[in-house]
């Protein structure tokens, strides 16, 4: 188990470096010169050279990349002498737009993204999985048909579209809910809940639809297996068969998917946050993209990749405890 973990972690580090290299290269090769952008309209060639030197973008590609990587592990210093700026490890650089440290920017917005991700995840797991299980058990019933129809629309409706339709109906027309925002929990829990409920539901709708379909399909497969038939033949009640025998094998693939989806969301619910104007990591990313703020995009991409990869490892380790068949292979 230990060697397995070490191997996985090493591989993960490799993938991260590769992601960083690729992203860095894309911006190096394709983007307009950041020095010109920072310098603005009143700019002299001398000033551009100076900014280039401070940012280190006058260096060859590999030197730049390794300085960037080094900054993450050991920190780095921008410029030299009087105007030098220290950036402690893990240094992701500074935003071109606001001059803020990218790490601080991410840390500042992380709580909002976590709140959105956790709330939505609770909703979609509860609704998606239970709807899927009930549909599988009552296959072909009215419930099943209705639930699967809703699930189909859930995966076909663009969430930015329903987000605004819902906002129009609930906020503008009926005025049941306030416009979504990101208040602190402590001040007014009810208002906090009302402000987040729409983003949670919108995000959860798509995922719940997917999970309901997957759970149903897995469950139907499992219910047809021999060990379930044996359990039934032993005279166990259908509830007991479901709980003891059928649920676990049907849900293991869901765990994998959930790990990936949740980890992905921690990197920011880009569309949902942008549509509702919620100031999380996702909104920050889309703002950074529209302003071509490379250090921020770079930082978020790396962080999102880190979450997905770590999520993946956690899921695989969990798998070994959930699924006895995998346990022997790993140990």
């Amino acid at each position, binding site marked *: 188990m230990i060697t397995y973990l070490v191997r996985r972690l090493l591989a993960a580090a490799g993938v991260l470096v590769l992601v960083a290299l690729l992203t860095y290269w894309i911006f190096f090769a394709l983007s307009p010169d950041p020095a010109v952008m920072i310098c603005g309209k009143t700019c002299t060639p001398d000033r551009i050279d100076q900014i280039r030197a401070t940012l280190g973008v006058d260096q060859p590609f590999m030197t730049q990349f390794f300085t960037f990587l080094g900054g993450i592990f050991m920190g780095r210093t921008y410029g030299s002498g009087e105007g030098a700026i220290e950036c402690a490890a893990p240094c992701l650089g500074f935003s071109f737009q606001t001059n803020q440290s990218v790490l601080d920017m991410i840390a500042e917005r992380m709580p909002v993204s976590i709140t959105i991700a956790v709330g939505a995840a609770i909703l979609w797991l509860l609704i998606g999985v239970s709807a899927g299980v009930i549909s599988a058990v009552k296959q072909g019933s009215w419930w099943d048909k209705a639930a699967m129809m809703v699930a189909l629309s859930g995966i076909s409706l*663009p969430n*930015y579209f329903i987000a605004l339709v819902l906002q129009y109906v609930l906020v503008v027309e009926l005025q049941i809910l306030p416009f979504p925002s990101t208040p602190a929990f402590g001040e007014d829990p009810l208002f906090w809940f009302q402000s987040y409920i729409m983003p949670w539901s919108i995000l959860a709708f798509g995922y719940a639809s997917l999970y309901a379909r997957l759970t149903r399909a897995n469950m139907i497969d499992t219910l047809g297996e021999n060990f379930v038939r044996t359990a039934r033949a032993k005279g166990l009640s259908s509830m007991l068969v479901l709980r003891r025998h059928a649920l676990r094998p049907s849900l293991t693939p869901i765990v994998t998917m959930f790990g990936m989806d949740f980890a992905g969301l921690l990197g920011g619910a880009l569309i949902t946050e942008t549509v509702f104007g919620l100031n999380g990591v996702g909104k920050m990313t*889309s703002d950074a*993209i529209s302003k071509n703020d490379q250090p921020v995009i770079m930082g978020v991409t790396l962080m999102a990749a880190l979450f997905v990869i770590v999520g993946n490892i956690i899921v695989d380790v969990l798998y070994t405890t959930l699924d006895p068949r995998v346990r022997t292979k790993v140990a």
Partner: protein
Amino acid sequence: MSMLPVGLMAETGEVTAEEGGGTGPNRGRSTTLRRVTTAMLASPAAMLSALFIVLIVLVAIAAPLLVKLSGWDPFQYDDTAINADLGGLPNLPWGGVSAEHWFGVEPQSGRDVFARIVYGARVSLSIAFSAAAITTVVGVVLGMLAGFLGGWVDQVISRIMDFLMAFPSLIFMIALLSALPAGNRPVLLVVVLCIFGWPYTARVIRGQTMSLAQREFVEAAQASGASKSAIVFKEILPNLTGTIIVLVTLAVPSYIGTEAALSFLGVGVVPPTPSWGQMIATAVPWYATDPMFFFVPGLFLFLTVLSFTVFGDHLSRAIDTGETSK
């Protein structure tokens, strides 16, 4: 799999993962075709969605003609349809729907929404179809190679697939598209969709090829001295037909959705060229004052994605039942 707003990509893997077995030796193919067709014809949902798909494809192809019929091209401004005193809102209620402008007009410019929807269908569908075609070819070839040859070939291909699938792809696609120079946006979109799309096809094909390679008819071909490429293309490929068709029908809606999302976020198709996602983005500031303008492109996007998904679902089930009942 959070790359898509609704994660449709995961769907392609899921549906076909149930498929397992493959279609067996190809002698029964004409009967299979007949059986699948009968099953599809018997389902009203499948037929309705097929009807809508055909309609949208025809509309996309005939766009220039339809626009002549309606009298307005997608770039033409119509000042008489909007009211400058109201900030450019359409003169008529319901987004300016009238005999003149069938789906209303765009606020401020007065451009014809029908023409933009019709041309948008062209853009959205051609991007999705091209991406689906390319990812299918690449995915099938690499998937078959990995599954059939195994060894280091499989290792290399599988590691690349793992890498691409463990990637925060939505963020990355956006970053890539925003960094790339403007150029030919639709082509760039196809390229980006393909880079992240092919592993989902290849993964399924690889699995099926591996199980098909164990079957008797492949062994028989091997024993009779057939070359590797002959086995792959003459024995294995024909048996993957069903899977491939299902994968394509489910890939198309996921690409339509992703293209729309990217265009909605402003890194996809650039104005004045219309695309549905971009039309929704344009309508965002107007969603409260001119809901119709916001609603129309969303409805078309929804119905198109839904139709492809329903059709693909039924198709995969129709092909599946035959296998299990055999």
